[in-house]
């Protein structure tokens, strides 16, 4: 039944599916690890139990999200070989060492100290426990750094040579690691992870404020999250702009697709807000745009010329429709985030931050916004660099492993079924944990602080879900 499918399409679908599922967990755990570090640090500094309660509350959620990130990440590290073996053979000498450094510096750091962070309170001193939390947070950031360097090298390759068997070989490691798009992509992604977490924390805080606006933990987390939204969302807009300008310099075709610029504009390109990309006719139908605004944003000059897709052969164009829309979803959500941050500042100034049910409802609705924006952003950049895996040098179709369509179809199907089932349960458990009011069951919930030998109430497992 699978013979009619093309192994290339199936392998791409499988990679897209597994990596999109995977990125959800790191996007959340990068931000959450840093948040846990801040919470524990604030607790140690102020001795305010609200911070400790919040730390324990989010730590449990972190454990589940991190576990899902680990297991979905193992998939990625083997899929390069099983489905993209030609790419691995050719690019391995350059990107392999970067990924090895990710494992050596980041994964071990996270995993090694995670046990102490989750289970070690009471077994080690407060200072050591905090060190473990800091190491986990630091590890998540290091991991992001390396893998974004890898991804950026594939987008804007530098510092390489090509040997006689066609492999990319390293010539200048600094140029490889700090390739042209890496700093922009790293900043954009780390800020995105922080925003994602801020909006999740904000939504959970708002959810509990809607039920009980006196809950001290809910107030604290909502306030912290809204500070993040107010400060980081505008910074992200600026970072995104810089990233876009960098993309225009190195991958102009991607920007043409993002902007829907089928035709060239010699004196000022419009910013299309809406339109339906028509790939057959190579034009944007029903276009609604602001004249010259695209040139203003990308070139900081109203009349700057911008080339369009009419300068690019059809077979070297990415799928414009996907890129055009995913980019708009990301930008739209980013704009909403800035708005939420601004409203929170206004309400805070008026002393009504905890007393604004309508705003709290909006914050709950914005809870998943970060995830959607992160996925939309990645779709934009990954689909936008097609048809290449290594930009301008190695095409996606030349990267494929010699796998038979039935084998890829079967594995793709298995990943879809297993991921939806298992990570569906995981998401459900996380939502159930989030639904529990923060702080309510503390004293009882002293699991981690008991030392060996003391038995007690925790055997009741207060946070276990009641049997249904």
């Amino acid at each position: 039944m699978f013979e009619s499918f093309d192994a290339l399409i199936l392998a791409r679908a499988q990679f897209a599916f597994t990596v999109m599922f995977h990125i959800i967990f790191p996007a959340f755990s990068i931000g959450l690890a840093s948040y846990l570090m801040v919470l524990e640090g604030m607790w140690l500094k102020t001795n305010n139990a609200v911070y400790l309660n919040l730390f324990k509350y989010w730590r449990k959620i972190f454990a589940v999200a991190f576990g899902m990130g680990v297991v979905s990440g193992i998939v990625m590290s083997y899929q390069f070989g099983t489905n993209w073996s030609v790419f691995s053979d050719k690019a391995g000498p350059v990107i392999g060492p970067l990924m090895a450094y990710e494992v050596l510096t980041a994964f071990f750091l996270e995993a090694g100290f995670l046990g102490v962070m989750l289970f070690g309170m009471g077994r080690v001193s407060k200072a050591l426990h905090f060190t473990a939390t800091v190491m986990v947070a630091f590890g998540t950031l290091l991991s992001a750094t390396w893998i974004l360097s890898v991804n950026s090298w594939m987008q804007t390759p530098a510092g390489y040579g090509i040997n006689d068997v066609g492999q990319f070989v390293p010539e200048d490691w600094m140029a490889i690691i700090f390739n042209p798009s890496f700093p922009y992509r790293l900043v954009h992604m780390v800020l995105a992870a922080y925003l994602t977490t801020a909006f999740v924390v904000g939504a959970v805080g708002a959810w509990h404020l809607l039920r009980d606006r006196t809950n001290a933990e809910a107030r604290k987390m909502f306030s912290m999250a809204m500070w993040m939204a107010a400060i980081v969302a505008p910074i992200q807009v600026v970072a995104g702009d810089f990233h876009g300008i960098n993309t225009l310099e190195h991958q102009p075709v991607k920007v043409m697709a993002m902007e829907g610029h089928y035709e060239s504009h010699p004196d000022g390109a419009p910013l299309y807000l809406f339109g339906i990309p028509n790939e057959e006719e190579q034009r944007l139908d029903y276009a609604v745009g602001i004249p010259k605004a695209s040139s203003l944003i990308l070139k900081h000059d109203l009349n700057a010329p911008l080339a369009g897709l009419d300068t690019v052969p059809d077979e070297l164009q990415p799928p414009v429709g996907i890129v055009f829309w995913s980019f708009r979803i990301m930008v739209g959500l980013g704009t909403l985030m800035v708005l939420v941050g601004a409203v929170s500042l206004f309400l805070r100034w008026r002393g009504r931050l905890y007393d604004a049910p309508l705003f709290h409802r909006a914050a709950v609705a914005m809870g998943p916004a970060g995830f959607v924006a992160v996925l939309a952003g990645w779709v934009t950049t990954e689909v936008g660099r097609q048809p290449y895996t290594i930009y301008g040098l190695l095409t996606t179709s030349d990267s494929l492993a010699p796998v038979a369509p039935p084998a890829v179809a079967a594995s793709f199907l298995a990943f879809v079924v297993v991921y939806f089932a298992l990570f569906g349960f995981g998401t459900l458990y996380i939502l159930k944990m989030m639904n529990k009011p923060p702080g309510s069951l503390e004293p009882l919930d002293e699991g981690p602080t008991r030392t060996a030998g003391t038995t007690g109430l925790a055997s009741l497992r207060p946070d276990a879900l009641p049997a249904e």
Partner: protein
Amino acid sequence: MFDLPTIWAGLLALAIFIYVILDGFDLGIGIVFPFLSSDKDRDTAMNSVAPVWDGNETWLVLGGGGLMAAFPLAYAIVMPALYAPFIIMILALVFRGVAFEYRWRDKAHEKIWDRSFFFGSLIATFCQGIVLGAFVQGIEVNGRAYGGGWWDWLTPFTVTCGIALTAGYALLGTTWLVLKTEGDLRDQAYRLARITALATLVFVGVVSLWTPFLSPEIAERWFTFPNLLFVMPVPTLTAILAAILGWSLLTKRDQVPFPTTIGLFALCFAGLGIGIAPYIVPRAITIQEAAAPDASLSFMLVGAAILLPLIIAYTAYSYWVFRGKVDPEAGYH
């Protein structure tokens, strides 16, 4: 002799060995999970590995990532050759990995997650055994790619390796429980360890005798003079350690069986090395042929030389924090 590819082959072998030992005992606990008598015993068994399993599995990521980085050609040949067992292993690891958190979160479905933990651990282990067996029996290569069929990995030999590794991991898991638990659970672990020890020794014997018949090249290494003198310590030491294992399981010396089992694994590993070197894709591609350029290997070696000792140090520290018999009531849940 000690050029960069050789050093990296050694480091990768070390990473894989550490993985086999560390994830071996927590996979092994999954394999014997349904044979423990009560829910409380299962809770304790799982708690004994909960703080360390993430770290254990990270060595598998290092194995995959390291192979791609240091020997990209071998990675590009071996992964498609073993497509099915690798994909199934990864999926099985997902099933067991999520069970660590899920079974505490959802008491109503605890049985489902217990099964997910058991079958995930069992299937992942069996697939690793298949991978090992398929690797030892040889992989067909065509140019710079895999040249064999989609079912080459499934032979009586690979299935036997799968069973042998399952028994071996179960032995690691049960001897770990002997080390880490007390009372009735420890006694159950002793009973299970005796069964799995016997199964492990029998299957390791079968695989060891079978391997030389896979290829005259392997047979020559084991059965000709003067190689014979050089390789003889491996079976001899194996016999000695097997005797120590049997004695310690019968006389209940809690501290002895786990390290002895690690010793047995080390000897099996050495035996495999004797059969495989200097190939990285057995009898097709050598370590030298598959190696990434020296610029890649030396760049990584700097990092590995600094970081591996650090990693081993803080991993050891983490084990030290959770040392001793595990408290059945503890756990952050």
